[in-house]
């Protein structure tokens, strides 16, 4: 990986006909200008800006973690941390839904993992018709900067798999920056959270995967399994 350059809005990042303008860039009079604060990335002569800050901007196909805000006659209004609210219709829920009692499936305040299947002028439409989507019953949810999500996931999921292997937790990272951790023990979940926060902090160093591997070594081995939970069960 070569040293990555940061662009600021209005800066000329290339001149002449050698490059094509990509995302968040603009070509005016033979010069390519940056339109956003972020890293310059070049792929096949295409220059684009990868934003490093800012709010979540939804895209079609994103898997997001949302919270039910309201119930209407044919679906649910979901807060996904974007400026617009998202909508989930009963049609996109792959289970039997009693139209007179939608709250039996999702009540206000429930959290869910969903996928954006369409975006238009009216708003965002969500779907649950895919593997791994649905209501969240238990686990740990916290928020990170949405721009750091690709680093937490890593190349082809390498980073997230590393954390899964080292903590024994199941992790879902929503593109909107909300992270769900489901593990056997609270210790494991907290450790996974700590690891993710560590990645977010160190997100722009090179060889991040090795760095996180070393971090896990310095933190000791696998998290203990389920001991605390057992005590709680005994008390009950």
């Amino acid at each position, binding site marked *: 990986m070569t040293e990555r350059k940061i662009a*600021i*809005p*209005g800066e000329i990042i290339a001149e002449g006909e050698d490059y094509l303008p990509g995302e968040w860039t603009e070509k005016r009079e033979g010069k390519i200008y940056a*339109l*956003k*604060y972020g890293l310059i990335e070049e792929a096949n002569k295409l220059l684009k800006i990868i934003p490093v800050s*800012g709010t979540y901007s939804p895209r079609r196909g994103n898997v997001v973690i949302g919270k039910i805000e309201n119930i209407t006659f044919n679906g649910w209004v979901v807060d996904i941390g974007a*400026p617009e609210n998202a909508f989930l219709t009963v049609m996109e829920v792959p289970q039997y839904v009693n139209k007179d009692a939608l709250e039996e499936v999702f009540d206000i305040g429930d959290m869910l993992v969903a996928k954006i299947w369409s975006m238009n002028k009216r708003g965002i439409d969500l779907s649950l018709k895919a593997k791994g989507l649905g209501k969240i019953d238990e686990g740990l949810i916290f928020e990170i900067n949405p721009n750091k999500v690709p680093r937490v996931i890593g190349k082809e999921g390498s980073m997230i798999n590393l954390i899964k292997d080292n903590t024994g937790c199941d992790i879902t990272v929503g593109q909107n920056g909300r992270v769900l951790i489901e593990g056997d023990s609270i210790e494991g979940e907290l450790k996974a959270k700590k690891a993710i926060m560590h990645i977010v902090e160190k997100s722009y160093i090179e060889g991040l995967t090795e760095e996180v591997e070393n971090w896990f070594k310095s933190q000791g081995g696998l998290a203990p399994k389920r001991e605390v939970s057992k005590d709680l069960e005994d008390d009950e």
Partner: protein
Amino acid sequence: MAKKTENFERPDGRKLNELRPIKARVGVIPNADGSAIYQSGDTIAIAAVYGPKKMHPQHQQDPAKGVLRCSYNMMTFSVSDRIKPGTSRRSTEISKITEWALEPVLMLDKFPGQVIDIFIHIIQADAGTRCAGINAASMALAHAGVPMKNLVCSVSVGKLDKTLVVDLTKEEEDFEEGEGPTDIPVSMTPDGKITHLQLDGKIGPEQLKEVLDIGKKAIEEIYEIQKKALKEAFN
């Protein structure tokens, strides 16, 4: 018009076209989506940007484009006589001026029904607060990842009697000899497009052109500092 540049001395010993020492930094408010602090001599402005987010109240939404909402405020302790907290005629005006100065570079048509909030606070004032506020706000907007055509830089050019100077201090603004002081705050993009120009006093059309030339040179210096601050924030 004759210029008496030879024998004119500024109270703080600066050259006529010399800016006050500038410090700038971004990312000073972790809770905000973007933030910046800009200091020019004894004037300090801090700006925070939130959004783009959904516009509330709903009746203020614009379905065609986003809305930029600015709030300029001077802290009670920013001047030697404590100023009353809260909005005043002056702060409402400067908020509006700041919106107008920044709007031309923003691509608000990408955010229908949404709002970008900017909060500018003047921590310490020694003239040129609106310029410091605009500089801080422009950096904070860039830092917040808002799509922009360019940054906006702002500086005040003054006419003391018949001499043109750049970046006035409070002491110079209170200059009382000859034709008295004239304050001309000007905001431009680094490529020289004017987004804001105000005039408080008297000046001839020929000299105003000169003012814009002086302003443009000062703005190039300010742009370099803003650029450096944004690039450094990343390391």
